[in-house]
């Protein structure tokens, strides 16, 4: 007799089964949640083939493909929530937040609609696809909307747990995800809460605050390299960008002074801005923001090459942090 054992999320067996793509594990969380809660709906914008197949097969009555029409997709999600459903909108982050920006603002945020947006292809992960498929403004847009929760999981494991946290939250949530597998940061004992954060390394010289796929792992690699240079870097995963963990930021500023933020998002309005807004008011320290420059990519290259170009690879982050530490030590 074959016994089916469900592996613990984040365990090696779970990763072997489900992989390290954040959209895949977010979809998994939605699918598992749907098994015990028939309020959960999967809403698609002609991108259901990005991991929505299992939901469609098992729960065809709760799976709706609205085609290529995001304003209607978001508005209809709000309508479903108005009569008690918990719709998950699965589409590219830019399509939900920018094409349908006013529907997100009024029908979700203003109405506090219990709708979750699982946005993929965020940052510059789409690489060669070019600027139409890059998404460097989503955090700024979502964060500026009252009532909106903004989550940026650091890996597929955090994406799984934060999707369930979004399910449990009463109100609109934007979860920033990606398609390709990314470096594992967390394991089977980690837990996540809206409004929370993770201190992943302790250190006295500088705090690197990062959020999102790839960048948190990059911050950890940079911290290791900095340690070899005698620079002790504290690393904070600020996965809940809104509401933000003010206490961890103030505490970090008091411990290390200098803060460096790392994000795969425009340097305007994203994680760095969120950090600076807190610290400017509560614990002013120098804040250096690393992120996407204020321009659309003008070169065609891979994701990895874009990261280097924008100074967001581990070597660049290490060098910038080291420079900043030296500069502020003087």
């Amino acid at each position, binding site marked *: 007799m074959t016994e089916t054992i469900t592996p613990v999320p984040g365990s090696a067996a779970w990763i072997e089964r489900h992989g390290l793509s954040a959209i895949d594990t977010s979809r998994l969380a939605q699918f598992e949640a749907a098994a015990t809660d028939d309020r959960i709906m999967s809403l698609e914008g002609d991108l259901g083939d990005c991991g929505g197949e299992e939901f469609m097969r098992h729960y065809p009555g709760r799976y709706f493909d609205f*085609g290529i029409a995001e304003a209607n997709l978001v*508005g209809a999600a709000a309508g479903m929530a108005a*009569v008690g459903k918990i719709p998950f909108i699965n589409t590219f982050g830019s399509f939900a937040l920018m094409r349908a920006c006013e529907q997100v603002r009024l029908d979700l945020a203003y109405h506090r609609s219990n709708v979750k947006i699982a946005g993929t292809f965020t940052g510059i992960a789409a690489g060669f696809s070019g600027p139409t498929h890059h998404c460097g403004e989503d955090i700024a847009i979502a964060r500026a909307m009252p009532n909106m929760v903004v989550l940026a999981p650091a890996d597929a494991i955090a994406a799984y747990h934060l999707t369930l946290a979004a399910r449990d939250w009463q109100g609109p949530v934007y979860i920033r995800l990606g398609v390709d597998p990314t470096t594992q940061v967390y394991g089977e004992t980690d837990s996540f809460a809206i409004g929370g954060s993770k201190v992943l390394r302790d250190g006295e010289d500088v705090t690197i605050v990062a959020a999102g796929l790839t960048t948190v792992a990059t911050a950890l690699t940079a911290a290791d390299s900095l340690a070899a240079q005698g620079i002790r870097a504290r690393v904070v995963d600020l996965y809940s960008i809104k509401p933000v963990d003010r206490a961890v930021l103030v505490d970090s500023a008091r411990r290390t002074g200098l803060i460096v933020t790392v994000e795969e998002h425009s340097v305007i309005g994203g994680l760095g801005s969120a950090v600076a807004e807190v610290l400017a008011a509560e614990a002013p320290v120098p804040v250096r923001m690393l992120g996407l420059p204020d321009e659309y990519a003008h070169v065609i290259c891979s994701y990895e090459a874009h990261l280097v170009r924008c100074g967001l690879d581990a070597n660049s982050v290490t060098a910038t942090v080291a420079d900043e530490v030296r500069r502020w030590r003087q």
Partner: protein
Amino acid sequence: MTATTARPLVELAHRIRHHIVELATNSPGAHVGGSMSATEILTVLFFDDVLKVDPSNPQWTERDHLIYSKGHASAALYAVLAERGFFPVSELATYKQPGSRLAGHPSRDIPGVEWATGSLGHGLPVGVGISLANRHDNNTSRTFVVLGDGECEEGSVWEAAMSAAHFQLDNLVVVVDRNGFQEDGPTEEIMALEPFADKWRAFGWQVADVDGHDVTQLSEALHRVPFASGRPSCVIARTEKGHGLSFTANTHTWHYGKFSQEQYQQALAELSGEVPS
């Protein structure tokens, strides 16, 4: 419906127009034109047993939903909700006053308001979602969405219209207040909508074309929905912008405005005449 049974609805519509005149006078201003044109539509929906609603229990789960997508014309909606008993008629005097619930564009703080509208093109997508969810739950409640005609220039209306037919939402009804004007002028001059009924038919809707100030025609159409099984229904209510007052009728200049004391007196004089039959 006979002339006798229509009479109470005609009188109610007349009373609604009185309220609109008061609101346009005793406030910074109101969207008079679109409120006057939508008066009979709302009157028939709320007072002719079309909408299944309970003013004492606005959140009743079995109710029909009314999404009033042309939220700028709030004066008519507030007057109808108050007369229907969702809140006291005396509260209408607080329209656009400090601390009031009755803002220029409706919010869900107001009993009977299902959706906060004012930015156009939002109502029909929301109505599609409510209709889909109700059908999923085997809830026989229906969703009525009142659209302005100028509003139908928004692409989101047609995204939603396409999906309503695709999903075969025969529990969804649109009523378009086809008053022929938008803020800047006649719709056919600003952005032509005709052939309007054909557009809805082409998008898969079953369409009825009625005189939107004739309560008998409105009643007949709204009690007949769905017009076809498996298809959404659209009632195009041909109306007159600013209907009911000589100086507001058939013009976009009274899309929004505040009545002077002189205009107020003229409006009262015109409305004090015999109720039109």
